[in-house]
């Protein structure tokens, strides 16, 4: 299982950047609440990526502070209110840039280290 908290040997920017990319990518679409977001990441990665609350919320709040995501309390009938997050236009731009960067990064990795199966 790959944790978003990595060993000290890993670069913090990679860790940070990948976590941010994951969150931004999942929020590119309908608004999600925090738990849902964690579930989606876990499901889509077949349980290999798991965000603990301890990691997720500080990250979400930071993205919100930077204006990349916007949170909003929504009350649905018969349910407790939850806070839903969606990408802001700035977030969308940032996501595009990050995808481009990661694509280039992965290609470079592949060329050099043959990360992907042939």
């Amino acid at each position, binding site marked *: 299982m790959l944790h978003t908290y990595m060993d000290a040997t890993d670069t913090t920017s990679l860790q940070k950047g990948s976590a941010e990319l994951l969150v931004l990518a999942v929020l590119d679409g309908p608004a999600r*609440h*925090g738990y849902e977001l964690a579930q989606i990441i876990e499901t889509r990665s077949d349980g290999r990526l798991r965000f*603990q*609350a301890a990691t997720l*919320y500080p990250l979400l709040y*930071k993205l919100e502070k930077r204006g990349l995501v916007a949170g909003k309390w929504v009350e649905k009938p018969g349910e407790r209110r*939850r806070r839903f997050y969606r990408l802001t236009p700035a977030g969308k731009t940032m996501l595009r840039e990050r995808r481009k960067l990661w694509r280039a990064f992965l290609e470079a990795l592949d060329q050099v280290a043959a990360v992907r199966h042939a």
Partner: protein
Amino acid sequence: MDWRAYVRQRLPALDIPGSREAEIVEELALQLEAAHDRALSAGASGDEAFARAASEVPDWQAFADALLHAERPVAARLPSAVRLSADPPVPGAARGAVMQDLLQDIRYAVRSFLRAPRFTIPAVLALALGVGATSAIFSVVRGVMLEPLPYASPDRIVSIWEANVSLNQTRNVVSAANFLAWKERNRSFEYLGLTGPSRLIFILDGQPHEVSGLIASSEVFAALGVQPAMGRTYTAEEDLEGNAGVIMISHEFWRSGLGGRPDILGTTVVANGRPFEVIGVMPPRFTIEGQRADFYRTYAWTLEALRSATGRGTSHAIARLRDGVTLAQAQDEMRTIAAVLEKEEPRRNTGWSVAVVPIHEITTETIRPALLILAGAVLLVLLIACVNVANLLLARSTVRQRELGLRTALGAGRSRLLRQMLTESLLLSVIGGVAGIALAAAFHRGLLALVADRIPVPRLDQVTLDFTVVGFTMALSLGTGLLFGLVPALMATAMANDALREGGRHGSGPRSRRALGTLVVAEVALSLVLLAGAGLLIRSFVKLQSIDPGFRAEGVFTARVNAPSARYPTGGDAERFFSRALEAIRQIPAVQSAAGISFLPLAGPGMGTSFYRTDLPIPADGERPGTEVRPVTPNYFRTMGIPHLAGRDFTEADSADAPLVAVVSEGLVRRMYPGESPLGKRLQVAIGRAEGMDVEIVGVVGDVRFASLDAETRPAVYIPLPQLSIGLVTFVVRTGMEPLTLTSSVSAAVRSLDPEVPLADVRTMEAVVDATLARPRVVAVLLSAFAALALLLAGVGIYGVMAYSVAQRTQELGVRMALGATPASVFRLVLGQSLRLVLAGVALGLVAAAGLTRLLEALLYDTAPLDPWTFGATALLLVLVSMLASYVPARRGTRIAPVEALRAD
């Protein structure tokens, strides 16, 4: 399962708005609940599901840190040192961040002060009182004792007196003939001059006024190395007889007495009926040896006149040491000269030597013991104030350990917390210091008003609030704040984690509790020293006040009259004028009796000489007993209420050409005529004329205190004024009315005989007596004030510590009460704890006081420095006040509800 409560319990408090924090808690609770429910629905047991949810946040402190990281801008979180290296190198921005940090710290400190007035008010008050009192007293000490005298190289100037060890006269006026011999024989002095007190009658605005000044030879000014502010000093030629018509005046007399006329130099003023040309105006506030003088005039003596002068006059010498000559060398040489003079002139000089004293010592020696005591006392007050502040800071820091622990948990570095605590201490010290300066100014004014003219403190009029002293005390207060802020801060931050772990219940470690106890003991001990000192001075003062001066002072009016020699050339002329004046005064309706004396008792120096019985073998020179001599008019003893014990009073028949007679004091009779009647016996008294006076004793009166209330009574010989007239008399007038209401009628009576003779020193006899008590009174009042301050500070300190201790022991006391302890036993427990500390302090204080009160000995009258009554009463008072200070906290201890105590967190 209430997940919100779960989160709230574990999440350390975040320094962010409460509403935002609530949102975070809510959101997190939802997530944990969902994780828990999902695990359950996946078939996990209740415990497993809980563990799954709990694993979402494995480390709450790290989590809180991360949250804070996300929620708040970087600048506010990091210690400034880290930030400076992490931020891009924009100097302005870094400085801005530091300033912002400082402002935040200050804001936080102010808020925390406002929240804890029980801490802030006593702490600021203690600092302010300590700084204020110390600054005021030390300004005086510096101004009076440490400031160099306004002369050229003042450390080279000495004051020279004759000294007679066997007569206990260490600063006696100088015989003019001896002075001349010193002048001719010494090699130690560059200049050697003579000076003494003088009084002149000036006509100012048409009214005669007696003005005090100095008579001084020209070399006095050369020795001092001073020049007038305007004009010149007189020359050696002008010193001589026949050239007496020049005078120098003080700046103050020029401004107030002579209207500050710019053309004053060269003008002629009339004094004692003779013209004087004003040749100089001295610098403002100039004095010689601290003696205020409004004029300086010449002796107008020739060397022949000096050589043939008899007696010792009223002058002493002032000299400047020759370059390369040390004080010790000068002292040696002068003693050698005196020994030679003793052989050459045994009659005048047997037993007499010379005292050469630095002028600074002479100027300050009368006030020095009192000032040193007060300086010591006020330092003790400052020390107690500092201990008090330390106490309060320490107690407060232990209370705040939980808060500090929390902030450490939230990622505040130790240095960050230390900085915050230091900011608080410094701010406290600054507030205390500023309040202290305000108090210092008030104390200073109060002190000057208290001393005013009551005690002759040299240069007191020049003492201003000294900002070096204020700076020093401020620094001391800052230092105290820093030291006692820093140590608890270090202790607190070191223990912060423990504090959290224990849930903040036992915030005070035994270490800090011991420290607090030690401070209480110190405070009590220091206070006891001050209280004991004040107690001794008060006891001594009460004894002084109850001394019988030997006369009945109440209802007596006194006024001094000087018959100027220009118009009353002989003693007989002066005496006739006085006798006519008394005749006129007796005609005033309210006057019961009136008389005169040269040199009123307790009103300054008088006349003294040696004497012997003529019916016994004549004692050798230097072995003759000494006596006070006072010329008096008939009725003096009755007017003053001095008991008449035997023989008769003087009458009008005891005139200048009648047989010489004397009335003597009881003490003289006891000493010279034990077991026999002195009446009709004869004494040889060395006064009045070269061969002395051979008088017959015609009466005996009670002893009177002449020099001071606490000095031993000396034998006294009274001589009829016509037989020993010196042109100076103090009228004493007994009346049934308030004495001072006689002023204008007595003045008119004198003026009707001579419009140019003023009354001087118009006072009631009670005021005369009271003035001699001024110094002990002022010292006792000041020391008592300091002791009261110390008592107050100690009380506040003990209250603070006990209140804190009870708050700390809430849980323990609650458990005790739950287990059946009665309120009374809890009360005793708390009070007992306080009593143990106080008794330890009292014991320590008694030992310290026993060592220190010896320093007071010079100021005590008929009171032992170890007076057991004073020590006992002081200790008791301190214990009582301490118990009073512990009473409120102890009562609070008894009112702790057991349940509440157990809940206390």
